[in-house]
Each structure stands twice: as structure tokens, then as C-alpha cells.
């Protein structure tokens, strides 16, 4: 009578101890992982802050302007280059690739996207891109490190 009860209690105690031990070790593992992750998180947070600051620094309008003037033929937008969708001629419908989605900004009407003729207006001045000066190389970010 007494022995089975004791045996059950003993096995319960043993089982629970084992369970508890496993749980404890699991918790310890998780805690280690948590602290490692937290350290990584902090590192990433630091890095991302530095990168955001660097992005803002590198995209300074004055810097972009200087680079654009040196390497691109872009100029400020002339008023004649900006037209509204509504002012485009309607007979472009149905030619070539068309956009029939209702969200194309024109109330679902079909508008051809490519090869639009420029509406009449003063000619847009063209300019050749400046050639890189002697000894100057333009290095693309994706090619850095390659010969």
C-alpha cells in the first residue's frame, strides 16, 4: 500500500526534476542567445545609424549638384518639359503597349507610355556630358575592387 505510493511520488519527483533541469538548461541557452542577439542588435543599430547619417551626408544636394554638373548632361527642368496627362492628345490611344489598368492616373483611359511625342514648345537645349578630366576615373560602387 505504502510502497506504490512512495514509488509514484519518487518517480514524479525524479521526472519533475529532470524536466525542470532540462527547462533550466534550455532557458540558459536561450538567455545566451538572447544576449548575443541583443549585442548584435545594438551593433546593427549603431551601424544603421551611421549608415543613415552617411547616406544623408553623401546625398547632400550641393554634392549631388556638383557631381551632376561634372558627369551628367542634366539641367534644371524647363517649364515646357512638364505637361499634365489631361493636356496629352487623345489619339495616342490603342497604339503599341497600353496601360488599361484603372489606376493609371487617367481615370482608366488607355494611355500609351512609350514613344510619346514631345508636345510643342520651345526646344529643349541639349548638352553633351562633360568628359572626365585626364586621370579621373569614374568607379561604380558595384565594381569597386575589380581591376
Amino acid at each position, binding site marked *: 500500500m505504502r510502497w506504490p505510493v512512495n514509488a509514484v511520488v519518487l518517480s514524479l519527483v525524479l521526472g519533475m526534476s529532470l524536466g525542470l533541469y532540462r527547462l533550466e538548461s534550455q532557458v540558459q541557452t536561450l538567455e545566451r542567445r538572447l544576449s548575443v542577439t541583443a549585442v548584435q542588435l545594438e551593433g546593427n543599430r549603431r551601424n544603421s*545609424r551611421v549608415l543613415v547619417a552617411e547616406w*544623408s551626408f553623401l546625398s547632400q*544636394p550641393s554634392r549631388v549638384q556638383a557631381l551632376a554638373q561634372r558627369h551628367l548632361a542634366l539641367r534644371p527642368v524647363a517649364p*515646357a518639359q512638364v505637361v499634365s496627362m489631361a493636356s496629352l492628345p487623345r489619339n495616342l490611344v490603342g497604339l503599341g503597349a497600353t496601360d488599361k489598368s484603372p489606376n493609371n492616373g487617367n481615370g482608366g483611359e488607355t494611355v500609351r507610355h512609350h514613344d510619346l511625342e514631345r508636345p510643342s514648345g520651345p526646344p529643349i537645349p541639349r548638352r553633351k556630358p562633360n568628359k572626365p578630366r585626364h586621370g579621373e576615373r569614374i568607379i561604380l560602387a558595384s565594381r569597386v575592387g575589380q581591376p
Partner: protein
Amino acid sequence: MTRLKLSVNERGLEADLEPDQDRAILIGSKVQAIRIGRTRLLTVALVFAVSFFVLAGRLIELTIIREPSRSMAFTTASPSTYTAGRADIVDRNGILLATNLLTASLYANARVVPDPARAARRLVTVLPELSRSAVLELLASGRAFVWLKRKLTPSQQAAVNGLGIPGLDFRDEQRRLYPQGALESHVLGFTDVDGNGIAGIEKYFDQEIRDRGPLGQSLQLALDVRVQHALRDELSLAMNRFRASGAAGVVMDANTGEILALTSLPDFDPHHPSAAPDMSLFNRATKGVYELGSVFKVLTVAMALDSGATGIQGLYDASKPIRSARFTIRDSHPKNRWLSVPEILIYSSNIGAAKMALDVGRDGQRKYLDRFGLLGRPSLELPEVGTPLTPSRWGEISTMTASYGHGVAVSPVQFATTFAAMVNGGVLLPATLIKHKTGERTVGVQVIRARTSRQLRRLLRAVVEKGTGRKAEAAGYLVGGKTGTAEKAGLRGYRRDALISSFVAAFPMTAPKYVVYVLLDEPKGDAETHGFAGAGWTAAPLAGRVISRIAPILGVQPIDDGAEPIRRAMALPPSSSVHYGSRNVAVN
């Protein structure tokens, strides 16, 4: 059975008893002992039970009730180094303007440094900006903590580490960084080495920026870096070309009061404000108050039309200068004839404006200027805000000079705020550097009637189309505005060689969206301007260039200004010879 239990439970007690004592006494004392024992046992059991219940309850709360997202373990385990500090500042599009970054600062435990002389000698080889004697003094001081250099660059840190001097160590400190450099220096201000806001937004919102902290929500300004750059770029080009001593500019949303760009030149590097010359730290756009000259005529015409003192077809005699006790008021572009109200603005006639102001009257003029917010300190989220200067005795002469912008000195940003009300339908909105939340309605005060504002739009367009502001034209954006050339006050009256040339503009004039105000301090004419330094030659073309640069950025739809509907909308009423509201002025 009971005895057996007793003997087991109370063995110690039994042993103490004398063997020859009476059995009854023995039983009696045993019963008593059992009672005491039971009570104690019960008490202890109760205490344990309560404790276990508390523990169980806490366990249930921690594991089941509490949400996993608010896990305690996470918050305590993440060793954030950004616990305190300043929040980021961003522009209206989220471009970073100011942030806190961690940088290493070098300190020494002077008690541990083995050979201070040698350590100092080696340290100055990698940090040449430190003085060797000063470092030696610090290292030999015997103190446990001395700062050697705050906020090192990563390469400096690596170099100091490479020396391997014992007793030297680094501590992470937050450093305020302004990635856009000097671009918004006058708006943002700067902080000291300990992260206290000293000037600008950093000072005005010091507490709030601290409360939010480096990981908190960033402070979003109304500024747009692209517009700010365009304004600053054009201002500095004009400033160099006309050898001006300074320049200021404001771009404002005419319908919300948001300031999209605010520049004062010369400006400074916010990382090293102490290295900048004194005048660079002075914000001409908000702190500086100037007699702005003829741009005030817009206000004079506004109050004259709004109060009914004259109509748009009113005529004034500008055939000869007004002479008063000490003053002679003359025109800089004299027509020597009667001028209509539009002509007074188009040719910028001082005589006409002065007579118009007299029609409004001294009290009327003061009432209107007060209503326009030009007689009190304006509200703006900066500590550097100038209070207007007004005549101490406001007599008839003050009324006349104020009509063309002399005798009343206000800051450029304050004038731009008022000008926005003149063209936006007559609603004065407080200028703000903080971006409005989407859907936020701005509450303004109706200071002139909407009809007067519509009349002013046509008049201002005419100034650019055929008046003194012709060089401010930016094709496609229907610019309207007014020139202002004021002589600076010197020790002996006004100096003819020192001018404040400014131009106030709004576009597109059919329904103005943006106000641009640019000001050049003491510009000098060059060959191309035939030596003239007045606003029509210097500030007006500057404003035109600023507008043609920022309009595409701001998404303003260009319109054909020659198209018939536009011409009709901007047409002035045909001039008539009706003498309307004018009166004979005798000032002598």
C-alpha cells in the same frame, strides 16, 4: 498509537523528563507540548502555503497573463548604449538633418600609467593637436579619471589603441552630427560638447529633443533640404557676385505658414560654431530687423484698398516731391505726373505711397500694421527672433516714411509671413518651422478681405510684368512681387552707398502657393547692372532664379502665362481719370 506518535514527535521533551515523575503529569505536559507543537506547525505551514500561493500567482502572471511582446527579459537584456541623448531631426521628407552617433572619448587613469613622460611623448605623436606638456600634467596628476581627448575619430582611436599604453581607455560618448553641414545651420543651431542645445531648434526644443531620446521619434521640420539648397546656392552666388556683406532668404508655404527654406548668409559649420566669425552666427532672416523699403508699399496699398481709403482706380499727384520740415520725399523712378494706384506700385512711387498712407491715416496705418503682425514680436520656433523697431513718436512723417518701408524695421521672416497673408486670400498664418501633420488645419486670422487680396495679386503680377520687378520673371510660374531698396541708417542719416535690396514674390499668382523673400545686405553693382545695386537689378533676378529652381521641386504645374484665360485673370482694370479718394497734401 497515540503514545507511539508522541514519543516519536516529542522525543527531546521526553528525554528531559525525570523517570520517577508521575505518569499523569507526564501525560498532561505531553498533551500541552503537542498542542504547542501543532500550533507552531500550523503557523509554519500557513506561512509556507501563502508563500507558495504568491509564487504560483506570480508565475502565472509572468507566463500566462503577461504579453510576450512586453517581455521583461528582453528589455533588461538589451544593453542599449543609446539610453539617453538627443532625438534625430529630419526634414519634411525624412532626410536626416541632425543625429547622435557614438564616438570614443579617451581618458586615463593616471594612477596606472607607468611612465607619464614617455606616455605623453608617444600620445602626441598620434594626436598632434594635444599639447605635450598639458598631457604630461594630466598623466602625472595621480587622479583616477582624467579626460585626454573627447570624441575621437575611428582612425584616431585605432592609433591610440596601437600605442598600447596601460591606463588609457575609451568611453563611448554621443556626438551630435549634422550630415548636411552648414546647409541649415541657422535653423538647427548647435549643441555644446555635453549635448545641451545652445542655439536654433536645438535650443528651442532642447527639452523635447532630450525627452524623445536618440531612439525615440525624430523631430520633423517643415524644411525641405532641396529647396533649402536651391535658395542657399542662389543666395551665395548673388552674394559673391554683388559683393554683399550678407544675404537672407525665406521660402514659405503661403497657405499653411510652413517655412520650407530659411537661410542667412554667411552661415557656419554647426560642428565647430566657435570657429566661425561672430557675424556668421547672426541669423539675418529671423533675428536681424531691417527697414525693408518699398516692399512695404504692398502693405500700404493693401490697407488703402481694404479700408476703402482709395480704390484700384484712385489717382495720386506724384508730379513733385513732398517737402516737410527736414525731409524731402522723392521718387527714385520719377514720372512727374499723376499716378494711379497700380502705377504707384509698378513704378514704386514713394510720393504716391506716402499720400496713400495719409489717406489711411496714422491710426489706420498703425491698426493695420498691428493686425498684420508687424508691430509685435513674431512667433517662431527659434530663440533668435528679432523684435520690430517702430517710431517712438508716430506722427505724420512717420506715417509717410512707413508707407514705403522706412522707420519701421522688421525681420525678413516676419515680413514674408505678412506678405503671405496679402496674397493667400487675406489670412495671416503664424510662420512655423515644424511640419504640419497631414490633415491638420491651420487657423489663421483674416486681416484683409479676400477681395483686396485678389486685387493685390493682379497688382503684384503687373509689377513683375511691366514694373520694377521685371527681372524676377520665371517663365511658366506666373511670378508676382515687389522690389524693395532701402538705404541703411548710418550715424548721420541714411547712407546712399549702403543698401538693403530685397524682393518679395509669390507664385503662381492665380492662386499663390509659395512665398519667396530674398534680401541682400549692402550689394554693390557691377558692369552688368550698370553699377546699380537696387533691388530691381540685384534681388529681383535672384528671386526669379530661385523660383525657377524650386518650382519644379515643389511640383508646381507650369502654365502658359501668355494664354488668354491667364491674361484675363491677371488683367488690371482700365485706368480712368476719376480722382478717387486722393486728397491734397500740405505737409509744410
